[in-house]
């Protein structure tokens, strides 16, 4: 029985003999001669050695065998491929000794030899691992040794890659790195290289680790290749970037940078490792974009040039480039803002220049040479209106232009949009007459601009107008102007379409809120009510039955006094206000006026009507004996209420009798300024000279005499007497100051109301917080001045709405109910 167990005991296993069998077989395997070997036999031999507890000896023998094989056979085979063209690559002295073609061919032979050695090694070690499976499972596991495969990979690293090519020279891996880098440089220069070969070597470096622990981030590729690759790439692109900035234009630069980044990504995929993609992109982005963006933008052919010449594609490239490295696109945004600012400032200055330019020479000569006496005459006002329109149009054109750039070139990017919008807002608000000009722009369009436009075009115009309004900071000032302009359009029936007016209002409502349009809407309501009232009154008169053919027809607009900015009509004649109510009407007119007042007070008892005689107009039929080539003719004259009153005076006089200025004033009580202006229209203006003035001069002076012009002659039946300053014009300086003052007053009220509202709700609040809340509450209307808020708070304290809290740590207020 003892004998029977001997075989199991392994006493017959002789290590040396068995190892010899294995060693011979391993040589066969390494020389690709394994097909005749029996796996079972080899496995059995290794198995028995391990069972005999000789696993460690076996393991060490195999390792030694592999080390010898690699350092002897394999290394020589690889080193032999380091031919002359490659030798100087690592010492940094020169590539110039061999042409790149020579280096490429030599390099490829070397790479091929290394690749094949590596692949052979892996295949052979795979087979050895199979044979030594039992050793791996029992010995390596129990003794915490790396598997024989891992061990052999480490040996390849040490014996081949990390051993010097020859004594005193760099390790083979350094040679490998410099050859690969050399080939990559060739590729960058446009030569074809064998990517596959390089990729195989990269696989090798990715499969090997610095130590046998096989830590993931200690791959040879990451430790010994990638850093050099990134470093040389950075150097290359730094120089390339500088060269491009010098030699090419910005557009080309962008295209080149984009191409290079894509090329490097492709290279990682095809030639190196995808794990490097992000890192090399970062390097290229740093060198070609991040560090060069400013220089690129400021090139002669840079962003300014691109904007000036509408190079949208190139702008897109710049955007794309910076977007890669900076989500906020800081440099590009800054450059664009600067451009908008400059262009905007130019527009603003042009508008100021136009509005301040002296009247042009021909207009000075035009009318009797006495223009000098009337500074701010009609010509100049027109010129200002033109400047206003021009300004708005230019601003809109600027906006359209940059919107287009933004959409086409900047991929509708939100961050850029915000910045561009801010700049637009800045230039619009930097122009002190922005609100007035925008309102005037709308006014002009309502009166004339939209006449021949289609609905879609009108829509676009309204949208444009709203667009500019949107930017305005001081919307309250805009409201003031808009109300004034609208008022005149409505009362003088200058508007092309009430429908369009209402559309505009509803757009504003959408954009600026209900409270903004409340008063504007009230104006429309007054107009509608007045129409109803007028027709009601006509019916009433018709029912009275006494159809007096000479009866004067009347139409009335009843305006709610707080809603309408009637001062728009008053002009500079504020001080003569009280005189107006005492206008003396001709009897026929007075009768009608009384009739209407009676009718109205029946409908709305307790309401007081104040007649705005300075705003009315009248249709008058006038006979002139020699008007039509010496024959009598009746003209339909449309003129102001005052003009009518003046003309009516001459009805009751013999045609030769004249009246002095003073007499006319006494008979009508028309305020002096209005009187003069109307007389000017009736006695000076050549086409409506129904009266003769003595002496003949352009100015109306005290003592001037007026009489019926028997010799008036005109071919036109309907004659409109021009009403001076009836249109909407840019304000004169005095008017402006007044508007400002009024505006400041209303701002004061708004601020007080806001402060009281806030304090009523919060009861007590620190000063700073009260300021912020007030500003934010009012921001939709205007940007309040901090000093004004402070003053208003003071004033509220004086009036005992608020009280300082003395003991508070920070200045605070308390609301007094």
């Amino acid at each position, binding site marked *: *029985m*003892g004998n*029977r*167990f001997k075989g*199991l*005991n*392994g006493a017959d296993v002789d290590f040396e003999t068995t190892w010899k069998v294995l060693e011979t077989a391993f040589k066969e395997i390494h020389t690709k001669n*394994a*097909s*005749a*070997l*029996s*796996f*079972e036999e080899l*496995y*059995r031999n290794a*198995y028995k050695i*391990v*069972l005999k507890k000789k696993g460690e000896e076996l393991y060490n023998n195999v390792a030694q065998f592999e080390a010898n094989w690699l350092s002897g056979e394999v290394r020589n085979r690889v080193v032999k491929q380091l031919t002359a063209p490659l030798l100087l690559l690592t010492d940094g002295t020169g590539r110039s000794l061999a042409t790149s073609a020579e280096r490429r061919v030599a390099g490829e032979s070397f790479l091929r030899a290394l690749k094949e050695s590596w692949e052979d090694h892996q295949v052979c070690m795979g*087979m050895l691992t*199979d*044979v030594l*499976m*039992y050793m791996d*499972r*029992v010995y390596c*596991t*129990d003794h915490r040794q790396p598997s024989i495969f891992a061990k052999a990979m480490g040996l390849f690293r040490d014996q081949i890659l990390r051993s010097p090519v020859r004594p005193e020279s760099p390790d083979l891996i350094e040679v490998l790195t410099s050859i690969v880098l050399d080939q990559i440089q060739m590729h960058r220069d446009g030569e074809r290289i064998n990517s596959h070969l390089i990729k195989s070597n990269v696989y090798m470096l990715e499969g090997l680790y610095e130590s046998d622990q096989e830590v993931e981030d200690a791959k040879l590729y990451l430790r010994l290749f990638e850093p050099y690759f990134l470093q040389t790439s950075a150097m290359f692109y730094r120089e390339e970037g500088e060269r491009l900035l010098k030699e090419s234009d910005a557009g080309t630069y962008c295209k080149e940078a984009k191409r290079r980044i894509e090329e490097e990504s492709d290279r990682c995929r095809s030639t190196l490792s995808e794990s490097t993609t992000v890192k090399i992109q970062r390097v290229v982005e740093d060198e070609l974009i991040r560090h060069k963006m400013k220089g690129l933008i400021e090139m002669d052919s840079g962003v300014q040039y691109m904007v000036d010449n509408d190079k949208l594609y190139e702008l897109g490239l710049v955007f794309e480039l910076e977007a890669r490295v900076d989500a906020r696109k800081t440099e590009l945004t800054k450059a664009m803002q600067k451009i908008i600012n400059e262009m905007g400032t130019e527009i603003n200055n042009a508008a100021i220049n136009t509005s301040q330019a002296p009247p042009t020479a021909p207009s000075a000569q035009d009318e009797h040479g006495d223009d000098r006496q009337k500074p701010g005459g009609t010509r100049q006002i027109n010129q200002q209106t033109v400047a206003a329109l021009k300004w708005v149009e230019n601003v809109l054109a600027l906006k359209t232009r940059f919107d287009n750039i933004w959409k086409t070139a900047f991929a509708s990017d939100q961050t850029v949009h915000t910045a561009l919008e801010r700049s637009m807002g800045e230039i619009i608000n930097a122009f002190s007459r922005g609100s007035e000009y925008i309102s005037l722009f709308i006014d002009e369009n309502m009166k004339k601009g939209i006449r021949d436009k289609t609905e879609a075009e009108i829509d676009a115009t309204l949208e444009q107008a709203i667009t500019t309004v949107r930017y305005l900071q001081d919307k309250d000032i805009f409201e003031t102007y808009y109300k004034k302009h609208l008022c005149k359009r409505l009362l003088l029936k200058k508007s092309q379409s009430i429908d369009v007016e209402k559309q505009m209002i509803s757009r504003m409502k959408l954009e600026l809120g209900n409270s903004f349009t409340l008063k504007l809407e009230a104006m429309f309501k007054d107009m509608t009510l007045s129409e109803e009232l007028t027709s009601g009154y006509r019916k009433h008169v018709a029912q009275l039955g006494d159809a007096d053919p000479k009866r004067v027809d009347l139409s009335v607009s009843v305006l709610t006094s707080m809603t309408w900015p009637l001062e728009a009509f008053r002009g500079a004649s504020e001080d003569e206000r009280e005189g107006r109510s005492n206008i003396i009407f001709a009897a026929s007119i007075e009768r009608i006026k009384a009739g209407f007042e009676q009718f109205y007070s029946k409908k709305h008892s307790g309401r007081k009507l104040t007649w705005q005689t300075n705003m009315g107009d009248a249709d008058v039929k006038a006979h002139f004996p020699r008007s039509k080539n010496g024959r009598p003719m009746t003209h339909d004259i449309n003129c102001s209420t005052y003009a009518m009153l003046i003309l009516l005076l001459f009805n009751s006089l013999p045609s030769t009798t004249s009246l002095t200025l003073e007499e006319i004033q006494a008979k009508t009580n028309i305020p002096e300024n209005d009187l003069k202006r109307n007389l000017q229209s009736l006695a000076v203006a050549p086409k409506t000279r129904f009266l003769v003035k003595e002496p003949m001069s352009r100015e109306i002076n005290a003592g001037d005499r007026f009489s019926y012009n028997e010799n008036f002659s005109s071919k036109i039946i309907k004659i409109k007497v021009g009403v001076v300053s009836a249109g909407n014009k840019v304000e004169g300086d005095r008017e402006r100051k007044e508007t400002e003052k009024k505006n400041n007053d209303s701002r004061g009220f708004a601020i007080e109301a806001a402060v009281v509202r806030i304090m009523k709700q919060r009861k007590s609040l620190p000063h700073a917080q009260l300021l912020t809340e007030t500003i934010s509450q009012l921001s939709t209307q205007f940007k309040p001045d901090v000093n004004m808020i402070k003053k208003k708070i003071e004033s509220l304290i004086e009036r005992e709405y608020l009280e300082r809290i003395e003991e508070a740590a920070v200045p605070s207020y308390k609301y007094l109910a």
Partner: protein
Amino acid sequence: MGDKPRTELFNALQSLYQSRDYSDLVIFARDGTRHPVHRAIVCPRSPWFSSAVQVGHWREGNEGHVALPDEEPEVVRLLVEYLYLLDYEPVEVAATEDNTSRGDSSSDADRRSTQSSQAGQYGQVYGTSAVSAFGGPQSPFSQIFRTRTESALTVHALPSGDFHGTFGRPSTRTRRPNGNNVAPEPSPLATNAPCLALHARMYTAGQKYGIEGLKKLALDKFKIQLTRHWDSEELAEAIHVVYNTTPASDKEMREAVADVLDWHGRLLDKPEIEIAIMEINGLAYELLKRSRRAETEYMG
């Protein structure tokens, strides 16, 4: 019903095993016995076979022959059987020799029914029915075959960890805390022939050819046989097989042996056991450790 497709697969494997149609590899045992097999069945189960026949590497793969000159013919036969049927069944030599054992088999059956609780204690592991179905000498092999494969599969499909807790596998681990050095009752599943050395060799084969399932199965069969045949002459040989053909880090067979010697102290009086213990240092040390541990428990 749900088992139907599975049954179908196992039936197919069974018929492949019996017919050996389409075989593309031949395994030779020491005595030259041929076992035509299918690479597609054998290789996925054993890394050893997979390596041996890998295309273009070795003679075995190129020729389609795998010689196992070191393996006993019975081991090779059972190895192949296991790869197809998830179980193996040694040929009952004892049954043909001895008439009394036939009588025994009926008493086996009685014991099985009366001591079903104990059957639960040992048997379930690798198929109570696997062993019993196979074990009855009267049972025609093929008739019960299906039952066997099904149950064997069921057991294999369960995660092995569950067995320890649920079924109280006959392991030293579960018993020792009680401090009782009491041997288990003979298992009703044990067959007449001891087959101790054979099961130990099957375990070794599982280890050598990298087949984990086979190792587990052989271990359980070995333990079940030990409950009844601990006194068999084969024990000494089995001890030698266990200690000489498995690595020291592979504890389970070694512990099974030590348990038996521990429970049945008089075994030490047998000369062949004495030789074994003297020859095998590891075994002597293992026994020494146990006796010390038992002492401490007693004192405590």
